[in-house]
């Protein structure tokens, strides 16, 4: 436009000059001035027209441009993010409404300003730096950063790009930024969710599977594969990967469960089966899942998890084993246990309890402590009645003896007396409040009883000779007697003293035998028949009884034994023979030499010999026979037959310590035969090794 104006002005000036000059120099010619004026007017008109046309075009163009700018501005303003354009000097050329609003100004105000005019200093510095970087690197930059105010206020994604002219000059930068808080939040949430899911899976030790029934493909999580010992790449996505590994014995059952779920019969699919691991071993797996169905009831998808329940299965087996073991222990224990639950009702009784009392578990299960006490008391003898659990507890508390010292002794009125020791143990357990413990002390009681019986008997046995000694001494001191009679009385005192000595010795013997176990035997080689003759001639049978009748063996029998001890044993047996045949009868002593070796601890090559002492007395019952050797056991407990009850046990000790054995045969009312088996020595004699071996034996 301007050019045209200049041209126009020049033309006018040129006309004026030409006219002026012509008029001055050629005043009469009017032709040229008219022509030139016409030319001038035409050119000016043309010029004007052109100018008007150009103007119109310009206006049109401007209108178009304005419109375009408006569209552009409208677009930019309505973009949901910041937009700006800066020149190479970092001055805003244009900003959109969003940007302007954020600064609190109008877009036109911002044009020409810099970041420093609009933003806080720190932020502006950062932006400036970015701009410089972008312009110098000629590359765009994208940044995600928290908004001024911290990441909780929001996140912004900023994108800056240099504006490069076609000639390569940097014209400035263009940039936009948008709020990505939502996106960030979503990402955050997703990350958290993902992490939570992962942790949960890891923590629960579950493997995940996701099956598409239509395609038959399954997604197996890495953990699913790891659980079976495989790496992620070692198992594919086929359903067969799973089917192939299920234990053949479990497969049918498992498939049936799956089908039931797919048919809609179960709400949840659940199955325990074994899976084969990479190493060939099987693992117990708990498989659970649920399918997603379409309207027609077809399964679109099924997702589930695998749990390794190997440990649980092992624990279950262990618990079962423990329970069985406890059960076995309780069944074998001879003691009765009764356990009570939290409310002090009977929960369990051991088999031994039933055996001892006759009360079966069903009889007492669930009854209260009081009812139980009454029941048990009802079974007792009046003298030793069970006082009840409550009183037991009170007694224990009073005596402050904790759990063990205070026990009630009760006696059950059952056939064949039974003495039980009852104690109560309280428990802190939730499941068991207390346990009543019944110990069968019948045997111990009997032994104790026998021991005190023994002491009483021993004392008693001493009283009788003592009575003679004391009595005769007293009357000798207080009365006069003839010489003969006096001597007789003194003799009695003497003999009775001797008897007392032997009783005392027997007691001491017993103590020693118990303590030393025969280590002090003095062994010598002698002929057995010879010893027996000695013993029998030395034995004084009770008045009016005949001496034992000895029948010697055909040949000599040599034994290596302790002469004194053997004598003692023989005397004991013979004495018993008389004691237990109070109605008389012959006592016979014979030798038995078997052709077959006795089934006992006989060693050596020679056959043993038996010395049989037989009486025709009262004999023994089965029970008495069984208990003959028991310490303190007396077949006749009334005391009518004297004795300490030790005689036979001493005999047994002595004979067994010689390497022999004692055999008994008895018929009630007919008599008893006691056979003492002894190892013999060969008639050709003595090597030192023999002595040694025998000593060793006797030390057993």
């Amino acid at each position, binding site marked *: 436009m301007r050019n045209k104006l200049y041209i126009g002005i020049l033309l006018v000036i040129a006309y004026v000059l030409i006219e002026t000059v012509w008029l001055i120099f050629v005043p009469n010619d009017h032709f040229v001035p008219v022509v030139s004026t016409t030319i001038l007017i035409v050119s000016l008109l043309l010029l004007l027209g052109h100018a008007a046309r150009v103007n119109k075009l310009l206006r049109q163009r401007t209108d178009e441009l304005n419109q375009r700018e408006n569209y552009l501005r409208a677009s930019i303003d309505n973009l949901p993010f910041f937009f700006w354009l800066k020149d190479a000097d970092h001055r805003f050329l244009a900003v959109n409404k969003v940007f302007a609003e954020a600064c609190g100004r109008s877009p036109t105000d911002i044009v020409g300003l810099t970041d420093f005019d609009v933003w806080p200093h720190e932020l502006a510095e950062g932006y400036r730096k970015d701009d410089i970087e972008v312009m110098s690197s000629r590359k765009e930059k994208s940044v995600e950063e928290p908004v001024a105010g911290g990441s909780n206020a929001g996140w912004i994604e900023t994108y800056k790009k240099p504006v490069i002219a076609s000639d390569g000059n940097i014209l400035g930068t263009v940039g936009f930024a948008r709020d990505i808080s939502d996106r960030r939040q979503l990402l955050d949430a997703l990350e958290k969710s993902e992490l939570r899911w992962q942790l949960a899976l890891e923590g629960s030790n579950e493997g995940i599977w996701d099956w598409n029934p239509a395609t038959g493909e399954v997604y197996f999580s890495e953990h699913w594969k790891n659980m079976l010992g495989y790496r992620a790449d070692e198992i594919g996505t086929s359903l067969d990967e799973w089917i192939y590994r299920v234990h053949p014995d479990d497969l049918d059952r498992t498939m049936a469960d799956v089908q039931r779920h797919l048919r809609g019969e179960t709400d949840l699919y659940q199955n325990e089966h074994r899976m084969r691991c990479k190493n060939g071993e099987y693992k117990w797996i708990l498989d659970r899942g649920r399918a997603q169905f379409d309207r027609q009831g077809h399964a679109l998808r099924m997702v589930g998890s695998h749990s390794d329940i190997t440990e649980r299965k092992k624990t279950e087996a262990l618990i079962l084993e423990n329970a069985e073991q406890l059960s076995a222990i309780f069944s074998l224990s001879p003691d009765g246990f009764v356990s009570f639950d939290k409310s002090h009702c009977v929960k369990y009784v051991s088999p031994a309890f039933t055996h001892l009392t006759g009360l079966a578990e069903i009889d007492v299960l669930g009854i209260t402590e009081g009812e139980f006490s009454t029941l048990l008391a009802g079974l007792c003898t009046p003298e030793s009645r069970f006082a009840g659990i409550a009183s037991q507890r009170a007694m224990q508390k009073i005596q402050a003896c904790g759990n063990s010292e205070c026990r009630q002794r009760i006696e059950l009125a059952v056939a064949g007396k039974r003495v039980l020791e009852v104690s109560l143990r309280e428990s802190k357990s939730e499941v068991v409040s207390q346990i009543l413990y019944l110990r069968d002390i019948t045997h111990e009681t009997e032994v104790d009883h026998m021991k005190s019986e023994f002491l*009483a008997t021993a*004392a*008693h*046995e001493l*009283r*009788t000779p*003592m*009575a*003679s*000694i*004391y*009595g*005769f001494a*007293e*009357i000798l001191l*207080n009365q006069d007697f003839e010489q003969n009679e006096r001597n007789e*009385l003194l003799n*009695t005192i003497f003999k*009775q003293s001797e008897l007392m000595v032997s009783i005392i010795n027997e007691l001491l013997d017993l103590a020693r035998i118990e303590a030393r176990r025969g280590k002090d035997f003095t062994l010598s080689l002698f002929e057995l028949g010879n010893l027996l003759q000695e013993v029998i001639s030395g034995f004084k049978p009770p*008045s009016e009884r005949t001496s034992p009748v000895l029948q010697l063996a055909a040949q000599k029998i040599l034994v290596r034994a302790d002469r004194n001890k053997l004598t003692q044993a023989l005397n004991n047996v013979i004495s018993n023979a008389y004691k237990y045949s*109070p109605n008389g009868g012959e006592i016979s002593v014979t030798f038995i030499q078997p052709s077959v070796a006795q089934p006992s601890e006989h060693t050596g090559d020679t056959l043993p010999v038996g010395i049989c002492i037989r009486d025709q007395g009262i004999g023994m019952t089965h029970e008495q026979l069984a208990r003959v050797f028991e310490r303190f056991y007396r077949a006749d407990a*009334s*005391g*009518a*037959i*004297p004795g300490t009850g030790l005689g036979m046990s001493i005999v047994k000790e002595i004979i067994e310590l010689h390497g022999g054995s004692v055999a008994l045969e008895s018929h009630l009312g007919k008599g008893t035969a006691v056979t003492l088996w002894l190892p013999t020595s060969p008639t050709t004699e003595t090597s030192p090794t023999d002595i040694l071996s025998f000593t060793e034996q006797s030390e057993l």
Partner: protein
Amino acid sequence: MNKILIIDDHADIRRLISITLGKNYEIFEAEDGVSGLKLAMQQQPDIVVLDVMMPGVMNGLQVLDAIQCAPSLSHTKVLMVTARGQVHDYEDGMQRGAYAYFIKPFSPLQLAATIKKALSE
């Protein structure tokens, strides 16, 4: 003369008691419960000196009971002379009607004195 029956399975004890009592009494002896009781029924003694622990079918306590029951022996006083020295044995004997209870070893002189006292009552 008063009759005294001694029932004890130990000959020495019978001898002791017999010597102590001397010739002032008519003395009978038995070795066990059965023969002792038989003798008692026969002789109806005033005093029976009785041991408890004796062999045979009857022990001393059973003899005591029998004597207590027998109407012909209602005048008979029984003195127990026994090795059974527990308190309950003594009480048992006294409860069953024994006149006195001597525990072995006993003083024969005291026994004689007690017999004399029993006879005078």
